[in-house]
């Protein structure tokens, strides 16, 4: 059923009896043209674009738990395309454009809210780096503004401008950046894909990848073998685990990132704000909770939860940046397992195994990439060639040295 104000009004009168499942909870078939492992944002978006753009509908998304149970359902919902390096900007900007039309494309309100993303800077060197980044964005046709201290103060008068340990000098603002209702992205893509014939299979964990003579034949799952000519991984924090089923060792480590939400509050802060002298970023959800986060915990983990020192660091920086938060309360904290790559940038590529594809290395920034990545990955899977916006996101770049290291931290996954 199409969603609209009218359908809501009609259903309200009928006691909401006419609504049906947003997506089909499918039983797995014995064989597909392609299966996507992972019912997160990337997997579901890939399925949607495979069906919509490439007419591939005999496909399935295999999810070991419920769809959206991974990082797409536990991230801080920030979308932006304010990247520095030419390897990254095109994909994130493609994604940004897709976000801007997503609701009408999917007929699903994912609450894409372009309230702006403001990255604060606290030193001259940081401002220079932001200028470099802003100019790189503009060269790519992406909007960006460098704000001085006064302009930041006008926008966010509640930040500490008088007594800060690291005084705010200005900020890089991307007005088109903002937040998106995370769960709705998974649900909306699932609905879109399902409507086009894609099987969304929940509670179906891939336990093996069957390969013969260097060619993929299908996947073993907790619900039996499923044959497929093409197998596409989109399992985020589980990438190493799934890739190892095909004998692959990758430049990826799994790390935990925590996120937090406060009790609900009347509107307090405008868009997304990031603190430049540490690791802290914050926005406010439509429900009124301050949604915020910080740095990763920093050690390999599959536990989906973190430790206390990061909780404290995050709160300290919250207080340092926004002294008004003192009496507000943290309500809940949680963690997600991310596929940290060795240069901090993602990989969308073929693998050495014919028919096996890789989408990984999103670190803590892959939510914003979901539409763009889904579209580019679908393109790769369908055509066998990288999408023009993702030509640099290759697996062999570590070997050739064409790294995409936004932070210049080198080959240590936990520093990106």
């Amino acid at each position, binding site marked *: 059923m199409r*969603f609209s*104000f009218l359908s*809501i009004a009609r259903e*309200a009168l009928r*006691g*909401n009896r006419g*609504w*049906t499942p*947003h997506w089909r*909870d499918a039983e797995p078939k014995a064989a597909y043209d392609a299966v996507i492992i992972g019912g997160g944002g990337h997997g579901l978006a890939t399925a949607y674009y495979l069906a919509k753009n490439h007419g591939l509908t005999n496909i399935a998304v295999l999810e070991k738990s419920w769809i*959206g149970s991974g990082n797409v359902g536990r991230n801080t919902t920030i979308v932006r395309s304010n990247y520095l390096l030419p390897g990254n900007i095109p994909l994130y900007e493609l994604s940004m454009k897709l976000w801007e039309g997503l609701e*009408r494309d999917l007929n699903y*309100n*994912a*609450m894409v809210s372009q309230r702006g993303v403001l990255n604060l800077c*606290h030193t001259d060197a940081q*401002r*220079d780096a932001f*200028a*470099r980044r802003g*100019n*790189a964005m*503009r*060269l*790519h046709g992406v909007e*960006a*503004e*460098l704000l001085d201290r006064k302009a930041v103060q006008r926008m966010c008068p509640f930040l500490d401008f008088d*007594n800060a*340990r*690291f005084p705010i000098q200005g900020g890089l603002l991307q007005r088109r950046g903002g937040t998106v209702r995370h769960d709705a992205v998974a649900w909306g893509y699932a609905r879109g894909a399902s409507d086009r014939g894609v099987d969304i299979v*929940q509670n179906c964990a891939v336990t093996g990848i069957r390969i013969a003579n260097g060619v993929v034949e299908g996947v073993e799952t907790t619900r039996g073998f499923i044959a497929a000519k093409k197998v596409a991984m989109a399992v985020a924090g589980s990438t190493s685990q799934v890739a190892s089923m095909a004998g692959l060792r990758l430049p990826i480590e799994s790390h935990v990132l925590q996120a937090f939400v*406060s*009790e*609900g509050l*009347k509107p*307090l802060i405008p868009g997304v704000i990031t603190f430049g002298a*540490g690791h802290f970023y914050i926005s406010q959800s*439509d*429900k*009124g909770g301050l949604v915020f986060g910080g740095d990763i915990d920093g050690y390999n983990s599959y536990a989906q*939860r973190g*430790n206390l020192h990061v*909780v*404290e660091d995050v*709160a*300290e*920086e*919250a*207080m*340092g940046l926004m002294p*008004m938060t003192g*009496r507000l*309360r*943290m*309500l*809940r904290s949680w963690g997600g397992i991310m596929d940290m790559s060795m240069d901090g940038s993602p990989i969308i590529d073929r693998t050495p195994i014919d028919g096996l594809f890789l989408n990984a290395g999103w670190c803590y920034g892959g939510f914003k990439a979901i539409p763009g990545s889904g579209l580019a990955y679908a393109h790769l899977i369908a055509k066998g060639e990288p999408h023009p916006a993702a030509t640099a996101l290759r697996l062999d770049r570590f070997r050739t*040295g064409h790294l995409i290291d936004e932070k*210049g*931290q080198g080959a240590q996954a936990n520093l990106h």
Partner: protein
Amino acid sequence: MSVGPYRLPTGGAIDRAQALSFRFDGTSLTGFAGDTLASALLANGHRVVGRSFKYHRPRGVLTAGPEEPNALVELRSGARREPNTKATTAELFDGLEAASQNRWPSLRFDIGAAARLAGSAASAGFYYKTFMWPAAFWEKVYEPAIRRAAGLGRASGVEDPDTYEKAFAFCDVLVIGGGPAGLIAALTAGRSGARVILCDEDFVLGGRLNAERTEIDGQPAAIWAAAIATELEALPNVRVMRRTAVVGVYDGGTYAALERVADHLLEPPFGQPRQRFWRIVAKTAVLATGAVERPIVFGGNDKPGVMMAGAVRTYLNRFSVAPGRRVAFFANNDDAWTTAADLRAAGVDLVAVIDSRAEVADHIRAKAGNARVELSAAVADAKGGYGLTSLQIATPKGRIALDADALAVSGGWNPQLGLATHLGGKPQWSERHAAFLLPADLPAGLTVAGAANGMMTTAEALADGAAKGATAADAAGFTAAPAPLPRASDESFAVAPLWQVAASRTKAFVDFQNDVTASDLALSVREGFTSVEHLKRYTTLGMATDQGRTSNVNGLAMLAALTGRGIAETGATRARPPERPVAFGALAGLHRGKHLKPTRLTPSHRWAASEGAVFIEAGPWLRAQWYPRPGEKTWLDSVSREAAAVRSAVGICDVSTLGKIALFGRDVGAFLDRVYCNTFSTLPVGKLRYGLMLREDGFVMDDGTTARLSENEWVMSTTTANAAKVMHHLELARQVLWPQLDVRLASVTEQWAQFAIAGPNARALLERLLGDVSDEVVPYLAARIFDLGGIPARLFRVSFSGERAYEIAVPAQYGDALAHELMWAGEGLGVTPYGTEALGVLRIEKGHVAGNELNGQTTARDLGLGKMMSAKKDYIGRVMAARPALIDPDRPMLAGFRAVDPTKRPRAGAHFLKIGAPETPENDEGYLTSVAFSPALNRWIGLGFIKRGPERVGERIRAYDRMQGGDLELEICAPVFVDPEGTRVHG
């Protein structure tokens, strides 16, 4: 003074001699010491305390504890205003101010309540289905409206005047919860000699005992609890922490706890924080957090006046408050009947007891006395506009109506196990208890006791607590003797599950705070959100400030029924820390404002201040940025004067922030050869050399000089920013990569105060202090030790400025004195202190790279230092630096830049385009990294990276700068602007 119309004449644990006055929504009221805000409001007949989240329905007090979903207030005022505080946990104090929230203009007349009319159009998830057109309306119209309506309380918007602190504690046994189970667990462990910490979030120990009329060892239970508390406090190895909630369980036996030090006071006493955040490291722990009573889902179950049965007992027995004048009660279990007895004992009119079960044992039934009893019955709908007035009861004989102004409800009890699952365990469903019990995989060292462990009677709780206290002490290495158990009257807790009343006709709430109704759940299931976690996210069940403590189990039981699955199979949503919401301030402690992070001061900080320095935050350091002099209008005047003074006379600058590492051992030379890309093993004693360090991936990590002081003693300097990182790196190289080398390291960054003395008069200045420092004694790149009035002073002949220059180092305690001494020695020589800004100007004039160029993305070749990479040896980064992309001749390389128009100022961060080239990423040739005004050249100059830079000297290019108006035509030049021949360093 009125004691409040609902206050009972006698009894309770309140101090009637101590009346406290407080204000609610501007009205002055009175309560007693020992009250909570909720009990005081109820005593005064304030049944409506706030408005609900979505439908703005009037809401009252539902519980008597931290699980409260409804009675949220804004507590205190002004900068201390604190939103969403649960009235049921706010201890009353004289002068307390509170206001209801989420209503406008007033609690009684709330415009927002019109949202109720939207009725079933505003069902779960409706916003996913609409507000999509037109696109721009989301941010401008729909979303702001949604946001304004949502959110509940208002933040103060200004800085919190109170302080917070953090602390650590260590113990053998941590007991969480001081009810009967916790008290006896703590006592048993304490008597064994183990170090015990007992935390309870309440201000009185005893837990449920304070709410009941039961007896232990023949005394009222609350008296027994107080006696145990006294005994515990007398034990030197036991620490009792009241008002302290354990809020999180973390790895390795680390528990987070929040102590509310001064929340019960108008203002914190001198020297004390408002709250203290504890990190408790415990060998073992006993979780004795009790159980939370759950409501039953029926129509109008959110009306003010509907209250949990256990809470009614708490208000009656502990606070001496009657919940209403005509009270009914509705339950599915034996325990709740105690409420009936207590009501009668308190002289409150008990109008009816409604139990969903067909049979109730006679001795239980006797508790209702002569009150009307309806079995196999249920409250279908509660009625009333602004609070409960009557009930519709579904009985086997049909619907009957009953007048009542209060209804006590009990759907059974849920063990409080949140903390036991923070590390990931899943609670397991028990049919017998009709509740989730502890997970199979408990956190290491943690045991669960009492009602939290499904031991629902006092006697069971005591026995279980004693046993678990002993186990915990034993596990921590002590021997606990079994203590005789106190006698407790055993109550029955038999329960027959009832989640929802099918006969209800009006809105029945599952999650009160988030306004999630029974029909929302049904809709959600219809729309395919059948996983318990999907249901939660689609309906927001359990996501409010109470985290669903009164709603989750009902919700998932209803989900189980709707999907035809069992409750065990349906499972519960995951509990997460913090167990109680925790203020940011408490988590931050002293780290706020200027003290967010520690500040490091250089040894000559005071001298610099006395010279009028403007300081700048440089990472952890505060450094002198420049020294304004009278008559200088802008920072540029000062900086230019300082830089010029270095070129014409002599300047001094504190460079103590550079990292300094002492290296000892026979193999230091060989070691340095491996960690630097250039060669050090050939360095003679008494000399120093510039070194470049790569990461193993072939990019540049750091640079600096290393001097050889004696055969086996060397000292390395690192950049300020990378000091700690290089130390880690060298220790890794020494301990892990090449343990066979004889190398030992000591960080001496803090030990040496180091000053650069730069300029043509540097030598003359130093000779006044040290005697002969001529080229014969201290040649270029020499390292010498001098005696400076009995103090060993290290002198290094290095230059960052290109002028004749030295760096002198003395033990840091003499740093401030040395700065004064240098100024004295420079008198008549034009000595000028210079700051980091002039330092930057001088190094840019000389084409020296620094932080902006060493950005982790550049190679030695990019920096024009490719020749330093030795071909004769292995070193960290050698192999990866040879990857094709790192030796691509098209990589941007270091060059100098100046504006074609000498009056113009380029800006760092600009990119380079060929003149006339379209503005596309493909045409991007590099970027400008550092810019300064050169007093030597009287123009702005810069360094940057541009494709094939060194080959293109003389070419004009465009600095593309949309960020800061630095879009200009530039000329590429050599990176060394001043004295390219390098003669001045010897001059």
